[in-house]
């Protein structure tokens, strides 16, 4: 069992397991707990320590289920682009449980909004670097985690933050797989290019409308015809043509604040944002796309250096 005095802050010892009332360095407060920044006295490395939140509602069912599942998934993954749980630490009382994780200065959203060079678009080489990281991490998750239940089972559609939720989930498709995540990566790709979320729906219906406005209504698409007919849907969606090419300019140094996008890059973006999940590119195939093998060389983003 790790000892209480193993972690300290830069200024003074932080006795984590007896929890000082005043946080030394408070990084963030997530859904499941407060994150602290600390120094590992054994290795001198800076680490992030997340204290699992024990609300009174949660403790009725013992150790919080959400935290158990998060710990389980993170412990089963091992990838340079995925934050790793180094160890779990239990304090003097059962409600003091900590996840010791790698520490990062900021998340991607903070890097876009507040990092160095936040006022200008990312360079194409930087976008490419981040996209490779995200896709290779997703390829690893797909190969390792048992996130995707057997398709025979009916699964909930209430997964993924709304703005990044694949269209088939919005239409109650309960038989899904890793393609819902590659859709989310397509949304992130677009967001990296313009430094703003590309599909900011205010509700599920609005989200669907925004998706169809950007990518066109799926007409003459076997998948969508089958899904709608299975649901007995008689609702007619307004026919839109895809607006993707107008939204994301190719080979253009425009003043609109968008990162430079090569034709290869646009092709990858449209394959990630394929409305038909069966035609959506997989993370593994995306990594083999010419976007990564041709054109400018990848470069570590400025905020990361």
């Amino acid at each position, binding site marked *: *069992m790790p000892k209480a005095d193993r972690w300290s802050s830069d200024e003074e010892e932080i006795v984590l397991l007896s929890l000082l009332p005043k946080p030394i360095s408070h990084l963030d407060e997530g859904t499941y707990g407060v994150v602290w920044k600390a120094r590992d006295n054994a290795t001198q490395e800076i680490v992030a320590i997340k204290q699992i939140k024990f609300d009174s509602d949660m*403790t*009725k*069912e*013992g*150790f919080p*289920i959400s935290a*158990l*599942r998060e*710990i*389980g998934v993170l*412990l*089963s993954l091992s990838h340079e682009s995925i934050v790793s749980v180094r160890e*779990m630490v*239990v304090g003097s009382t*059962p409600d003091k*449980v900590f996840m010791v994780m790698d520490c990062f200065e900021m998340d991607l959203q903070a890097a876009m909004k507040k990092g160095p060079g936040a006022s200008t678009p990312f360079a194409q080489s930087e976008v490419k670097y981040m996209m490779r990281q995200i896709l290779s991490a997703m390829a690893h998750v*797909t*190969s*390792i*985690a*048992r996130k*995707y*239940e*057997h*398709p*025979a*089972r*009916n*699964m*909930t559609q209430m997964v993924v933050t709304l703005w990044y939720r694949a269209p088939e989930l919005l239409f109650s498709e309960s*038989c899904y*797989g890793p393609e819902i995540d590659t859709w989310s990566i397509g949304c992130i790709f677009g967001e990296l290019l313009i430094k703003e979320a590309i599909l900011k729906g205010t509700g599920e219906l609005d989200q669907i409308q925004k998706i169809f406005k950007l990518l066109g209504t799926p007409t003459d698409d076997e*998948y969508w015809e*089958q899904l709608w007919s299975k649901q007995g849907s008689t609702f007619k969606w307004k026919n839109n043509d895809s607006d993707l090419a107008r939204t994301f300019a190719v080979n253009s140094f425009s003043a609109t604040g968008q990162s430079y996008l090569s034709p290869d890059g646009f092709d990858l973006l449209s394959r990630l944002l394929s409305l038909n999940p069966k035609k959506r590119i997989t993370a593994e195939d995306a990594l083999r796309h010419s976007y990564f093998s041709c054109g400018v060389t990848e470069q570590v983003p400025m905020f990361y250096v």
Partner: protein
Amino acid sequence: MGYHEKQQLWWNFSMAELGSLFRKEQSTYRYKIHPEWHHSISIHWRHKICDWCYEFIDHYNFDREVVGVAIYYFDRYISSQTSCEGVHTKDKFQIIAVTSLFLAIKLHSMSENSLVESRSQALARLLYDHVDPQEIYEMEMNILVLLDWRLNPPTLHQFAINFSQLHPLGDCCSTTTSYLYEATRYQVELAIFSPELLATFTSSVIAYAALKNAEEKITVDNPHILTPDMNQSFEALMTDPTMTMTLDSTAVARCQLSLKRLCPQLPGLDEFSDTDTDDRDIQPDYYVQEDTPDPASISPLNVAYY
């Protein structure tokens, strides 16, 4: 999505998942049960605990896989406690068993929306119908720490469903496919009652041996269903280099024999209908007792009552 497309999707999922299960079995979840562990708990007591877990899970209509997970936690905890005094009491076993089931339900009953409400009820019942809830909270933390927070073992059920899904009988007809899975599942559920079996063979070997026994039974009942080509193609698939490991055929043969001792007579193919998937149709003999009330009508309140 058409039938064949769905079949292909299942096949792809099963191949990927089986590869992942093999990797887990050989790495993170590779462990040896303490050789002396079975002396620390009466086999009779462990049997009762398994029995109670199945009854509890059936009552709330959870997936029976949860019992396999709970017993995995239970065995690992007991196995590590052989030198500890105080664990050899009925009360202690009860707290470990209840907490193992409590933890397994929390982690493995999440995928289906309809079970969310049942889960709360089941957890409350486990907490308040046995001992002081505080004791369960404390035991939960002990188990989490002892298992090093590794709570997702590759289960017998996961292997059983994926082996069945990849079997060429899947293209044959739905009754035989369902039979293959149900007969395999039936045997692996029985295997959970046998600590020797779990200690001797890996989960993949047990599930595969159970599937081979089910195959044999299908062949005995109707020699024309399972062709030599089907057999060969399945064997070839299991030794495919992408499968990351091959199953030890000697171990599989030994395990088949052990399973046959545990379950001398599998239900016949002609007694099976895939339209009726009620679990109670394929339960071990000791569940079926004439003078016992319908298990669904009573709640299995306390493991100590057994």
